[in-house]
């Protein structure tokens, strides 16, 4: 009578790597999408700063 029985490949538990893969890919894609949006937002911030500088310069010119 063996003490331990090796898990066979066709048993349901052997499918855990597929389960892990599906959840890992889903979370990874969502995080990548959020990172993409955050970077776009940072680009927008940079452009707004440029516009701000331009407008400030113009206001200074108009004041003169």
């Amino acid at each position, binding site marked *: 009578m063996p003490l331990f029985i090796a898990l066979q490949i066709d048993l349901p538990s052997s499918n855990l790597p597929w389960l892990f893969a*599906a959840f890992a890919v*889903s979370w990874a*894609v969502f995080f990548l999408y959020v990172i993409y949006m955050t970077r776009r937002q940072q680009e927008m*911030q940079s452009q*707004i700063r440029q516009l701000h500088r*331009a407008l400030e310069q*113009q206001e200074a010119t108009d004041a003169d």
Partner: protein
Amino acid sequence: MEEHLVLARSEGIQKVAFDSTVKWRELFRANGRTNIRACLLVLTGILMLVNLYMIFMVAPTDAVLGHVQRIFYFHVPLAIVSFAAFLVVFVASVAYAVRRDPKWDNLAHSAAEVGVVFITLALITGMIWAKPVWNAWWLWTPRLTTTLILWLIYVAYLMIRSYAPNPSKAAVYGAVIGIVGFADVLVVYFSVQWWPGIHPTPVVGPLADAGSLDGTMRSVLLFSMLTFLALLTYLIIERMALKDTEDKIRDIRITMRRARQDGLPGD
């Protein structure tokens, strides 16, 4: 010259966004929706954690497929919620075609982009499910084929918009594809009824057979759908806010360029 200064101020950008240390969340405070988005983000995060607990701790293990069946609680909601996103695209496209209000176009564009993310994940998780269960990554069954076509339609939607010569034409092209493309969502949904095959039939909704799903499994599935619906809503609202900012910056730049071309100093 005054024109672009007035425009910049009137859009509420200058007051909030021109602080060099401003954070992106503060930028969107100009729209007065930051608190709603923050609440939605927290709610979605909590729902996601509870959803994971329910999938792994509450939902029973399938007697035939084993643990891999739990992919179902991600795969099905991702697909259903992507259909919801494309329904939003359809409704917003119709509204834009009728009223020509850019806000509807903004909604359609944002929903299409987020919908593509969801349908891409539905396809990927489906393939990961198929490999151990069907022993193949992909089978050209009607459901899979029509879903791939759906993915291509909305990727084309995003590409055509980005290649359009100007934003107004992009909005018109987008509205046409958003209205026509939605027909494929119906084809995908009814494909398992029209052409029965290896793909499982619906387990929830009007086409589902009574008793096709265990009660606990059904509850977990519905909760997962609710969670992904909250995530979809949050992502669409965030994307809309981002696009709104992009549009405002573009308008200000155009106004400044015109002012400069008229012989007035600009940026």
